[in-house]
């Protein structure tokens, strides 16, 4: 579903991402972990077309995102870590816009949106201006916008930040549901507990390089210790 080959990005003399390769399989929730400044966001930015890689190839559902960016973008939806969103429109306007861009059929819009709005408890706020939303509400809106498009792969940068425990639980369920139809989820997180519970596989990146990749059991086997993901993470990124 997502294939990264020898991806490299340099900022001046600093090597932000150094020759990384990995793939995300269909139906998989893939966690991308790493300490601050490890290269997670840079990698995600290259995948979604916000940054140009210096070297390497990114294939999204078999489409090269450098050679055919428009078709590549039709395969994914993206939620960034900062919740920067148009402030002067209503939540309803934003979702309308996303539906128009992803060409969601008019008949599906009402049913799907109402269901998502109810699940994430945003229905009563949807006609309000986004400038009045809290960080968590903006995050929920972005997630609904990403899910309504029903993309082949959901790319999320720290999706749980700002969400209350109930919303976090709902999001976890929604991500799992999304993968049931053969779609995938690729997300970065600092919340190792979430990664441990939700992800089929994880990759840990540090100083621009992937230091380990696989399911939790595979990683435990590799390092030869039966530790929690938190301990593994701390040990590998020290």
């Amino acid at each position, binding site marked *: 579903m997502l294939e990264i080959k020898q991806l490299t990005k340099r900022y001046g003399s600093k090597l932000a991402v150094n020759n990384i390769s990995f793939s995300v399989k269909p139906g998989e929730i893939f966690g991308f972990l790493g300490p601050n400044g490890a290269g997670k966001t840079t990698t995600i930015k290259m995948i979604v077309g916000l940054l140009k890689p210096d070297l390497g190839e990114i294939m999204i559902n078999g489409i090269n995102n450098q050679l055919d960016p428009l078709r590549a973008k039709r395969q994914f939806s993206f939620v960034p870590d*900062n919740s920067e969103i148009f402030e*002067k*429109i209503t939540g309803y306007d934003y979702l309308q816009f996303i539906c128009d*861009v992803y060409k969601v059929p008019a008949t599906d819009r009402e049913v799907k949106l109402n269901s998502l709005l109810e699940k994430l408890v945003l229905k*009563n706020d949807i006609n309000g201006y986004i400038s009045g939303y809290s960080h968590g509400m903006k995050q929920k809106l972005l997630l609904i916008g990403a899910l309504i498009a029903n993309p082949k792969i959901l790319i999320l940068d720290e999706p749980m930040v700002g969400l209350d425990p109930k919303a976090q639980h709902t999001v976890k369920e929604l991500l799992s549901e999304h993968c049931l139809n053969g779609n995938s989820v690729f997300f970065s997180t600092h919340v190792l507990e979430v990664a441990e519970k939700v992800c089929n596989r994880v990759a840990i990146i540090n100083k621009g390089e992937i230091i380990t990749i696989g399911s939790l059991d595979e990683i435990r086997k590799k390092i030869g210790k039966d530790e929690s993901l938190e301990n593994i993470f701390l040990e590998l990124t020290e």
Partner: protein
Amino acid sequence: MKEFMLTFKLLLKQNLSLGYFKERIKFDKKFRNMLLAMIFVLILCLPSYILLINTVINIFETFQTLYLESLFIVMAIFLSIFLIIFFGMFQIIAYFYFSSDVKLMTPLPINPKYYLISKFFIIYLWELILSLFVILPFFIVYGVYQQLFIYQWVGLAICFLLIPVIPLIIIGVLTVLLMNITNFVKNKDAIRMIGYIIMIGGLLLFQMYIYRNFLPQSPEEQVNVFEKLINNSSYFLDRFSVYYPITKLIDYALNGTALEAFLGVFIFILVSVIFLYLFSLFLERVFVKGYLKEHANPAIKKKKYQPKTYKKRSVSVAIARIDFITLLKVPIYAFNTFGVILILPVMFIIMSISVGGNETTEMLTSFYKNYKIDLWLAIILFLTVTASMIPIAATSFSREGKTNWIMRTLPISSKDHIKGRLLTPVITLLVFNVIMITLTLIFLSKISNNISEDFIYGAISLIISLVLSLPILIINLYVDLKKPLLNWENPQQAVKQNLNVLISLGVGFAYGTILFLSYNFVFKRFLPYQAILIIYFVSGFVLAYYLYRFIKKDFYLNLIDME
């Protein structure tokens, strides 16, 4: 005072930091290129600036022969106040209401009046930088030609520094009151926009009223004034001080004895300090109260849930819709983009009302009869160049700021991006052109005897000017695609402090000059009017098409490379 200095230094570093500037020159290639472009634009503007200074000198020399030196200084004060009315209000809104640092400072254990007054001083510094280029030449020319003494030069420098303070405070008070009054009104953004226009229009009209009342109208009055001028060189400063008493202090500083100059400057400083003190109290009590009310409870912005139908739109229309809503909802965008289409017609109406009398009407009728074709082509030229004065396309990407990731990651084709982003300025221009041509036709009905023919001219001009504007809009969009200003703290920066807007003006005027030269020196001599119109229509269309193809070609590469 310590708290004031602390916050002022911080804000100074944030807004005008030389260290940050040096670092960006050293490490940021895009910034270096932008700086080079800015220097290039400034060099291009240099001849015009020299012309402006020469004009100032010529005005003074003419005034001197008529004993009108005092009127010259009144003009400078007038111009200074005009600039503050025009630009100050938006600086106040941007720095006080749309800047993130108020949110950061409010929870700190600092009395709000200190950081708010610090913010005021930052705005004052920006106004001063503007005054350095526009107002200072007046003062220097006055000082040199009047052969001022050293103490008068010192007075002149202090007066120059103090002139913006009081008008800016007055504008500040009015703006904060308007924002507070409209805080809980339904459709407050629209009401505020109307409020700003009424306020600015009202203040400018008041200025015009004073200026008209203040200058002698009838021949008898003129003789009377001339006699007074011979006896009193400060006559106009005296007269103007009735409306704006500070003028009297400036008069003492520039034309008085050493003691008078000292007292004039001293009182001016004292009055300014008192105003600043009162303003700081006003900000502490009125601004903070309103600001907290507006930001404390997001729930006040909620609308009751009502099920809505989710309509399907084309992608380009969806982009244009979001753009339109944002332009209308952010007052700074609204005024800067739609301000021109509101102010120019108002100025046209004022000018056409002031034209009167049988003699003038006869003269205009004859002029229109003889130069009808030239006049309509001038209208086409004017409407075309106006496209560069409406900074919608030139700030299309910049205005998105930190939300730019949305449009850049969504699956939107280059064609839809370009169409959607051009739709807003095209509709805006269409509305403007219709208003201006309708007003022109109303005006012409007074002097023309064939209004149905004029109507056809008007319709043709509307279409041709719109087609001729398209290349300007596409170039502006391309410039903003290549070098958008995305990292801004308040929306004012995206429009007012954006080099792309300046480049857009340059493009518009260069394009207008080419159209004018081609008409005046080539087409007019050899071709009939109809052929000229066809040439303009076709060339505008073809140029727009090729520019569209050019921008479309590398659109995605530029989109990725934006940051």
